[in-house]
């Protein structure tokens, strides 16, 4: 990674018309529990065309995926990894893009998008998951950190 630039990463995804919803730490911040996070967590529409766009944006930002011994660093190979339906962390020069999929408790892209709110960043609009979806995902993840996040979200929305 050069210098982290999550806002630029989100801008590039939006400008490439990638269908995605922000979840995880950045969604926590958007809902008022402002804190640092080490990656940009997104849920993306799982159609082939969209996965290809995600992979193209990532590779243009120096993105690669380490899968065991294999280094995936082309749009085709990264799109293929995304098409498996498993979670794919993509290391880019702008920061880590974590494509969240295949996890218990994570709603589908369509469900998340239908309830999402929109926020502006660097002149583009990005979808952020609803606070209820975020709470549900935190509850389902159930780790100590997630439960602490859940408590903070409950406090913030009281």
């Amino acid at each position, binding site marked *: *990674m050069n*210098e*982290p*630039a*999550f*806002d630029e990463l989100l801008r590039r995804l939006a400008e490439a018309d990638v269908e995605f919803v*922000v979840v995880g*730490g*950045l969604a*926590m*911040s*958007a*809902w*008022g*529990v*402002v*804190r*640092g*996070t*080490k990656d940009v967590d997104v849920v993306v529409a799982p159609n082939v065309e969209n996965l290809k766009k995600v992979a193209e944006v990532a590779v243009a930002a120096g993105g690669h995926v380490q899968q065991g011994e294999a280094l995936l660093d082309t749009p085709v190979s990264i799109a293929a990894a995304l098409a498996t339906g498993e979670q794919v962390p993509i290391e880019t020069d702008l*920061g880590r893009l974590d494509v969240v999929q295949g996890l218990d408790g994570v709603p589908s892209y369509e469900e998340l998008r239908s309830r999402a*709110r*929109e*926020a*502006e*960043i660097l002149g583009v609009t*990005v979808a*952020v998951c609803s606070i209820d979806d975020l709470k549900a995902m935190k509850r389902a993840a159930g780790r100590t950190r997630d439960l602490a996040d859940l408590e*903070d979200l409950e*406090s*913030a*929305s*009281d």
Partner: protein
Amino acid sequence: MKEGEKGASSAAARAEAVRVQRLREDAKRPMSVNLAEGIALSHKLIRISEAARKT
């Protein structure tokens, strides 16, 4: 409970009340403002982690 423990407990409760109040205030701000702030904090966190990793 001893006096010192009572004092510490009360200070912790006050600090928690302040933290929760701040959360509520932040939650009322525009989502774009909070998102931008979260991104800025994330960048700082990563730079600190990277610097620590290199030393």
